[in-house]
């Protein structure tokens, strides 16, 4: 346990909490990389997934893509983009975006696809336009599953953002690689603990979001029953 004491001592050192390579800056870089990659991937993948789920066409592509993504070594993706784009944050960002897409796509597709087809059909019958069916019926009902996909993608991206430090001077992974190079085990261990804590906090927050989405949207009947009055009255 002596190693952990040294790592805690490293973490407690105020010198490691200031400046451009301090823990707050590194953490923000890490979260920034994660957020940027997720937003870009979500803009690309979520609409595509919803559309595939809505038309129920192209499901094979989604399945194949998520299977292939599982087999693809993330380090391979990172080093290939690193060689193509050079040292810097561009390579890890592109790699992270590519990594996030399959989970997001699968989540959005599975969510919409799992909606009982009678519900969008009923919405269409009472005069909803196709975009309204998607935005006001299928999207809310698919939210719990979709949030699950977002959760999986976020975890993968925040984990892999650690490897970004292999090709760029960014993120909490920097402590791991700097420690590896100089054989500074306390620094490495401290960095590892920081990444793990950050990831587990995100995991718990997102799991709570998923439960909240499931409570709000998955059982519309139950939710309506628990509310004091149906909205139809006021209209």
């Amino acid at each position, binding site marked *: 346990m002596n190693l952990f004491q040294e790592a805690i001592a490293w973490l407690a050192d105020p010198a490691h909490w200031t400046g451009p390579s301090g823990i707050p800056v590194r953490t923000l870089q890490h979260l920034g990389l994660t957020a940027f990659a997720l937003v870009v991937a979500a803009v690309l993948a979520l609409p595509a997934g919803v559309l595939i789920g809505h038309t129920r066409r192209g499901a094979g592509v989604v399945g194949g893509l998520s299977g292939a993504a599982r087999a693809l*070594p993330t380090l*391979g993706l990172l080093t290939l983009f690193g060689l193509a784009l050079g040292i810097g944050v561009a390579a890890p960002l592109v790699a992270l975006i590519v990594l996030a897409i399959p989970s997001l796509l699968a989540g959005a597709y599975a969510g919409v696809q799992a909606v009982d087809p009678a519900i969008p059909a009923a919405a269409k019958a009472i005069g909803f336009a196709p975009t309204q069916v998607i935005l006001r019926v299928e999207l809310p009902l698919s939210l719990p599953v979709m949030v699950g996909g977002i959760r999986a993608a976020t975890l993968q991206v925040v*984990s892999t953002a650690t490897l970004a430090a292999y090709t760029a001077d960014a993120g909490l992974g920097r402590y791991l690689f700097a420690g590896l190079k100089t054989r500074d085990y306390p620094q490495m261990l401290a960095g590892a603990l920081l990444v*793990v804590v950050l990831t587990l906090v995100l995991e718990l927050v997102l799991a709570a979001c998923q439960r909240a989405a499931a409570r709000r949207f998955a059982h519309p009947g139950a939710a309506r029953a628990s509310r004091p009055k149906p909205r139809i009255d006021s209209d």
Partner: protein
Amino acid sequence: MSWPVANWERVVSLAADHLVLSVPAILISIVLAVPIGRLAARRPRIGSPLLSLASLAYAIPALPLLIILPALLGTPLRSWQTMVAALSIYGVALLVRSAADAFGAVDAELRDAAVATGFAPRGLFWRVDLPLAVPVLVSGVRVVTVSTISLVTIGALVGVSSLGTLLTDGFQRGIAAEVWTGVLSTLLLALLLDALVLGIGRLLTPWNRRARS
């Protein structure tokens, strides 16, 4: 495409290293996850916290885990033991849920019938529960196999030799063909092992094959 041709001996020996790390981890995952999964399926009160713990364990990033494990286990950082332990943690975390699903899906009436015809608890597990759980278990093992093969490459970052070495070495020396060889040979190995698991699954469930033909 001259790099893989000129260096095929190195690729083969790294692929062997890759298997020496991944196959034991996959086997350990199966041996540990099957009983835990069955416990989770039979006793949900113990099972559901176990399953949450598994999903939390799966969320731990790989490289930090490789660095934390030596401090916990006292194994050397750059070692087979650390690598196999890390891979087994992910394998168990991933497989426990499908094992719980597999045993949960066994028809309760079939189990009652087996008890009624005189199966002892141990016989019930080996001759009723386990065979009936095999198809779902196999699909879980396939996922674990593929993700383990791909995860082994992370070990190259701390200096554990595998096909991942081609990735770090190719990157540092700026040889794109070497990195491509690393990526493609890892994918190929994952595909081969996946096919092997699928084949073993077919052999273990001859009744399925007969029903289909």
